[in-house]
């Protein structure tokens, strides 16, 4: 009986915590939508929008790496595919007055008829699905082949890198189909509105935030509950999971597919706000950067992934404006610093050392003991009831 009441109470309190969390997330989202635009110039606001879009792929990386322990160095592929999908839709919004019914680069390379796979991108619903499904399905297939054969650890990372190179070379080489190395750019209109006008850009900014909130909610749902705990179990001891009767393959494929789909979304919103997508974002370096954001923010923490993407990218844009030559060194240094001194990233630091500093500042002292004592309910009970 007592046990049941305890269970009920735990459910109640976790429900309340969930409501509080949802309220906080909404408040932050509203702050970004309503207040931040007043504080930043149009230029900075556009950057903020881009970085918020990048935060979506950071969530994806966190899901597959932070929680499931699979270091993917190929998310650039999924990101870029999402970007190309939306860009192809916009490139087909050709004004009536134009001389050619084809995107301008095609006539340049002597293409006379629209390639068949471009045609579905006349439809916006198809494009919207393609942004999510093409990268998601590709990741699922790739993951299925890799995980079924029990390829793990560093071999998985290498394979994802190899895939990146293949896709990069493919897109880079297809002038007639994708405008090769220049990528798709020079966007004109979307739904009749000018893509580059401040109003449209502000709409993209708001949409990015809404999608980011949904992505966060999705990841939060996946990583809490039994499914999320199983991901952690796979990360920590995969063969134990097998002997408990679970087949890790399906779980890993699903998470990799979701992670790829998030990357696709991210790429689409990033493309809308940068006005260009090119094979460059399939560079291995970019995929590695994504991992760095998550490492800096804090692995296995969703808030950390978002924070990491924003902090690193803002640092990047500020530093590369001031000292264009040293940004890369700084990024390398930052990564080394995090690995050596903040193994759990910014969030990890806040949870441990930061909490202590806060306590010290507010005058609430705390006895330092072994963590096992801190968590041991018997010790805590004695401490409370028998005094120090």
């Amino acid at each position, binding site marked *: 009986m007592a046990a049941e009441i305890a269970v009920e109470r735990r459910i109640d309190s976790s429900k309340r915590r969930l409501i509080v969390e949802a309220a906080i997330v909404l408040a932050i989202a509203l702050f970004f939508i309503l207040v931040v635009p007043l504080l930043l110039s149009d230029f900075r606001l556009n950057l903020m929008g881009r970085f918020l879009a990048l935060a979506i792929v950071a969530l994806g990386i966190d899901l597959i790496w932070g929680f499931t322990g699979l270091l993917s160095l190929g998310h650039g592929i999924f990101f870029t595919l999402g970007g190309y999908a939306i860009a192809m839709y916009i490139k087909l919004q050709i004004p009536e007055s134009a001389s050619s019914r084809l995107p301008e680069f095609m006539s340049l390379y002597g293409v006379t008829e629209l390639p068949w796979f471009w045609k579905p991108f006349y439809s916006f619903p198809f494009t919207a699905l393609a942004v999510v499904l093409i990268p998601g399905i590709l990741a699922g297939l790739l993951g299925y082949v890799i995980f079924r054969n029990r390829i793990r650890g560093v071999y998985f990372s290498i394979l994802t890198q190899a895939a990146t190179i293949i896709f990069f070379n493919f897109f880079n080489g297809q002038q007639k189909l994708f405008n090769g190395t220049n990528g798709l750019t020079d966007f004109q209109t979307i739904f009749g509105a000018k893509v580059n006008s401040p109003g449209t850009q502000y709409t993209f900014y708001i949409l990015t935030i809404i999608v980011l909130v949904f992505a966060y909610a999705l990841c939060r749902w996946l990583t809490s509950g039994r499914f999320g*705990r199983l991901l952690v*179990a796979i990360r*920590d001891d995969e063969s*134990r*999971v097998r*002997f408990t*009767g679970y087949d890790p393959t399906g779980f890993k494929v699903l998470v990799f597919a979701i992670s790829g789909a998030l990357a696709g979304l991210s790429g689409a919103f990033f493309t809308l706000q940068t006005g260009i997508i090119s094979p460059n974002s399939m560079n291995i370096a970019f995929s590695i950067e994504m991992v760095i954001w998550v490492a800096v923010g804090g692995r296995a923490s969703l808030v950390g992934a978002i924070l990491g993407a924003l902090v690193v990218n803002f640092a990047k844009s500020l530093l590369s404006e001031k000292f264009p030559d040293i940004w890369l060194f700084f990024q390398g240094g930052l990564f080394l610093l995090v690995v050596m001194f903040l193994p759990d990233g910014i969030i990890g630091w806040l949870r441990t050392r930061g909490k202590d500093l806060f306590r010290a500042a507010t005058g609430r002292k705390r006895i330092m003991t072994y963590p096992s004592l801190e968590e041991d309910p*018997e010790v805590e009970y004695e401490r409370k009831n028998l005094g120090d």
Partner: protein
Amino acid sequence: MSEKILEIENLTVSFDGFKALNNLNFSLNTGELRVIIGPNGAGKTTFLDIITGKTKPTEGNVRFKGKNLRPYSEHQIARMGVGRKFQTPRVYLNLTPRENLELACNRFKNVFSTLFRKPPTAERRTIGGLLETIGLARKADMKANLLSHGEKQWLEIGMLVAQSPDLLLVDEPVAGLTDEETELTGELLVSLSKSHSIIVIEHDMEFVRQIAQGQVTVLHQGSVLCEGHFDEVQSDPRVIEVYLGHEVDHDQPIDLQQAALQE
């Protein structure tokens, strides 16, 4: 004679020509608690690897409840009702004991039911009871990496039980435990043997004496050297020989535990 839950016929496993198991025959009755002993390198762990599907036999077959296990992979065999406890406790250190048990207790282990199905109340109650049994009720919600070695061992046994397997494979459950914990573990295993078939692999002879009610199997160089009651086995000159590694004076009985100590 009751039904056989596990039958192993002419089992050979070779790794690059080295025969870890050599023409091994073994069978276990439903509801039996069997202890397997043997010197280091006798093939005890390989034996468990074969049953659980981690390693596939080179020759011979393993039948569990009459079914040949060769085509099945680890998770399928686990779902059929074979639970395994590892030598070093393997629990998920970043999860709490309660979460560890929840994962093991889940009846529907495919992707979508794990994602969408809410754990039923009955399951939660089972877990509450199990936490009491393994003495972790008060530590149910702290991370498992803060538990002591003995507590982890117990948690893993709890996970095994939560899986509700028909056959429990337990690899050295008392390695690194205090005498008192060893005693309690023995009692736990004996009480579990009332409702499960169990194979225990163990080095600690005192512990074997405590739990071995029936047959004890001695493995040596990948085959069964002898089987019998603990006292018989203990005084079998062949057993003493493999434990000591040389001929012994057959007129002078040697305590096997002494032999194990000298190992």
